[in-house]
C-alpha cells in the first residue's frame, strides 16, 4: 500500500454506499461502538459456510480439517497482530467483555484474597469495572482508581502512591472509548510489575486503531473485540502470557476444553482449548482473521497517522461551533474520538437531528457512567472516526451541528 486514501477504502465497505434518508449518504461516525465490515471479511465467512462448514478439532473428513485449519490460521494471525509469543496465548471468547470476565473469574478467584488491592482507573468502560465489582462483592477485595484529570489524562502521581499499597492487579484501558485518551501502557505496566502486580489491558479501543505489541508493552493480559476492528460481532480475544494462563483453572466447562472426562471428574485440555468450551463462533473467528489481513494490508502505523490527521481536523472544526465543548485531551494524546456537550441541547436531541442528515453518532454515557459523573455530565454526544472516514464527513458533522443549534434556537 503506497498511499492511504479513505475514498478508496470506502469502496470496500458496502454499507457506506447506502442512503439512510433520501439523498443523504450514510456518514458513519460511530466506529468506537462497532466498525463497518469490508467485503473481504463478509466473503471469508460466506466462503466458510458455503464450502467448509463443519465443526472443528475432531472431524477427520476433509471439510472438518479445512474448517479447523482456517480457525487455527486466524489464531496465528491474531497472535502475530498483537505480538504474542505463541499461538496458544490467544483465547477466543465472545467479546472483550467476556475476556475480562474470564480473567476475573479464573485468575481473580484463584489469586485474590480478602483485602487484596486491584487498581483500576476512573475512565474504564463498564466492562472493566463491573467484573471487578462483582469479584469485590464475592472475595472482599479492595478496588482503587487512578483519577482522571480535567484534561482527561490519568493522574500518574496518584498511581505511584497507590502502588505503595502493593496491588495484586492493575487493569486499565489503553484507549478511553469516551475521551479518546491513549494511556501510557508501557509505563503503567512497568510500574505495576515493579510493584509485583499482574497487568490486564482493555485494548478494545487501542487494538483496532494503534500498533499494539505485547512484547513491547509487557502486560500479562490483553482483551479486545473483533467487531471494533472490521471483524464480525460474536468474537473477542484474550491474550494471556502462557505461564499465567497455564496456572489458571478453566472458565466454562464443556466440550473442547477437556482432555478426559469421567462421571465425577475431568482433566482440562491444554492451552488455548482449556478456555474455549463448546463450539466457538467458527465463521466469526475466520472473519476476524480476514479483518486482521485487511488491517495489515493498510498498516497499523498508517492507520494511526490517518486518524491523527482526522482528529486534528475534527477538533479544529468543532472548536468553531458555538457552545460546543469536547471532553478529553489534545489531539496528540488521543485517538479519533470526540465526545462533546452542546450547550442547551440534550445529546439525544443532537443525535436525532444529525440522523436526519444521515450522520450516525452516539448519544449517552457510552458505558462509562462513572467517567461522566467525573465530568458532571449525564450524557455526551460522541463522534468517532476510522479508516473510512474523510475530512468531508467531519465537515458534514459540523454543518449538522449548526443545524441542531438552529432548530433549538441556541
Amino acid at each position, binding site marked *: 500500500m503506497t498511499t492511504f486514501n479513505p475514498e478508496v477504502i470506502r469502496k470496500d465497505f458496502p454499507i457506506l454506499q447506502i442512503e439512510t*434518508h433520501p439523498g443523504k449518504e450514510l456518514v458513519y461516525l460511530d466506529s468506537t461502538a462497532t466498525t463497518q465490515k469490508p467485503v473481504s471479511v463478509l466473503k471469508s465467512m460466506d466462503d466458510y459456510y458455503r464450502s467448509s462448514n463443519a465443526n472443528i478439532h475432531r472431524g477427520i473428513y476433509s471439510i472438518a480439517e479445512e474448517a479447523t485449519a482456517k480457525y487455527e490460521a486466524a489464531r496465528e494471525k491474531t497472535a502475530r497482530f498483537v505480538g504474542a509469543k505463541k499461538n496458544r496465548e490467544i483465547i477466543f471468547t465472545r467479546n472483550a467483555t467476556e475476556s475480562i470476565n474470564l480473567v476475573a473469574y479464573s485468575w481473580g478467584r484463584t489469586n485474590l484474597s480478602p483485602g487484596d488491592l486491584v487498581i483500576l482507573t476512573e475512565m474504564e468502560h463498564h466492562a472493566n469495572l463491573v467484573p471487578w465489582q462483582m469479584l469485590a462483592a464475592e472475595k472482599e477485595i479492595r478496588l482503587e482508581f487512578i483519577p482522571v484529570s480535567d484534561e482527561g489524562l490519568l493522574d500518574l502521581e496518584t498511581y505511584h502512591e497507590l502502588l505503595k499499597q502493593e496491588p495484586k492487579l492493575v487493569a486499565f484501558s489503553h484507549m478511553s472509548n469516551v475521551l479518546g485518551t491513549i494511556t501510557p501502557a508501557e509505563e503503567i505496566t512497568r510500574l505495576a510489575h515493579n510493584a509485583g502486580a499482574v497487568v490486564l489491558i482493555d485494548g478494545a479501543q487501542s487494538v483496532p486503531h494503534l500498533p499494539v505489541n505485547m512484547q513491547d508493552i509487557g502486560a500479562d493480559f490483553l482483551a479486545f473485540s473483533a467487531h471494533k476492528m472490521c471483524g464480525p460481532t460474536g468474537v473477542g480475544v484474550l491474550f494471556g502470557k502462557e505461564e499465567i494462563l497455564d496456572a489458571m483453572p478453566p472458565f466454562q466447562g464443556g466440550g473442547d476444553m477437556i482432555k478426559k472426562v469421567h462421571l465425577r471428574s475431568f482433566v482440562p485440555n491444554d492451552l488455548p482449548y482449556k478456555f474455549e468450551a463448546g463450539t466457538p463462533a467458527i465463521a466469526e473467528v475466520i472473519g476476524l482473521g480476514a479483518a486482521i489481513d485487511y488491517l495489515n494490508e493498510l498498516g497499523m502505523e498508517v492507520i494511526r497517522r490517518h486518524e491523527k490527521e482526522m482528529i486534528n481536523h475534527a477538533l479544529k472544526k468543532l472548536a468553531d461551533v458555538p457552545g460546543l465543548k469536547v471532553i478529553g485531551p489534545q489531539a496528540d494524546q488521543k485517538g479519533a474520538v470526540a465526545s462533546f456537550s452542546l450547550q442547551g441541547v440534550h445529546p*439525544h436531541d443532537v443525535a436525532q437531528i444529525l440522523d*436526519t442528515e444521515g450522520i450516525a453518532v452516539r448519544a449517552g454515557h457510552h458505558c462509562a457512567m462513572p467517567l461522566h459523573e467525573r465530568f458532571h455530565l449525564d450524557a455526551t454526544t460522541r463522534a468517532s472516526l476510522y479508516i473510512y472516514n474523510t475530512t468531508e464527513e467531519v465537515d458534514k458533522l459540523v454543518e449538522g451541528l449548526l443545524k441542531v443549534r438552529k432548530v433549538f434556537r441556541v
Partner: protein
Amino acid sequence: MDDLYREVIIDRSQNPIFKGKLDPCDITFEDENPLCGDVIRVDLRVDINNHITEAAFDGHGCAISQASADLLMESIIGKKIEEIKALTKQDVLDNLGIELGAVRLKCALLPLKALKAGVYGLSKSNDDLLEGE
C-alpha cells in the same frame, strides 16, 4: 423526521409551564431511564373527590421527555384518578403529535410511567403501566 422537533416540542422543553415542585403534595413518584440518564419526578395534589387539582414535574432529559412531561401535566389537571389510570402511550403521542422510534419512545413515555406508578402507589414502575388499566 424534522417534524419531530415541532414548535410545541422545542417551546415546551425550553419554557415548560408545569416544571417545579409541589410541597406538600399527595402523590409523588420519581423515575429514570438509565439508558440515557433522564430523570422525571411527578408531584400531584388531589382533592377529596379524587380530582387532580395541581400537577408538576421536575428532572432533566432530552427535549422529547421534557415536552412530553409538560404536556402530560397540562392534560391531567382536573381529571379524576380513574381517568389517569386509563391513560395509555397513545395519549402521550397524541399530546406530542409525533411518531417515534423505539429508543425515543422511551424518552416520551418516561413521564407517563412515573405518573401512573405514582397514582397506583407502586414502589417501582413497569412497562405495563403504558397500557390502559
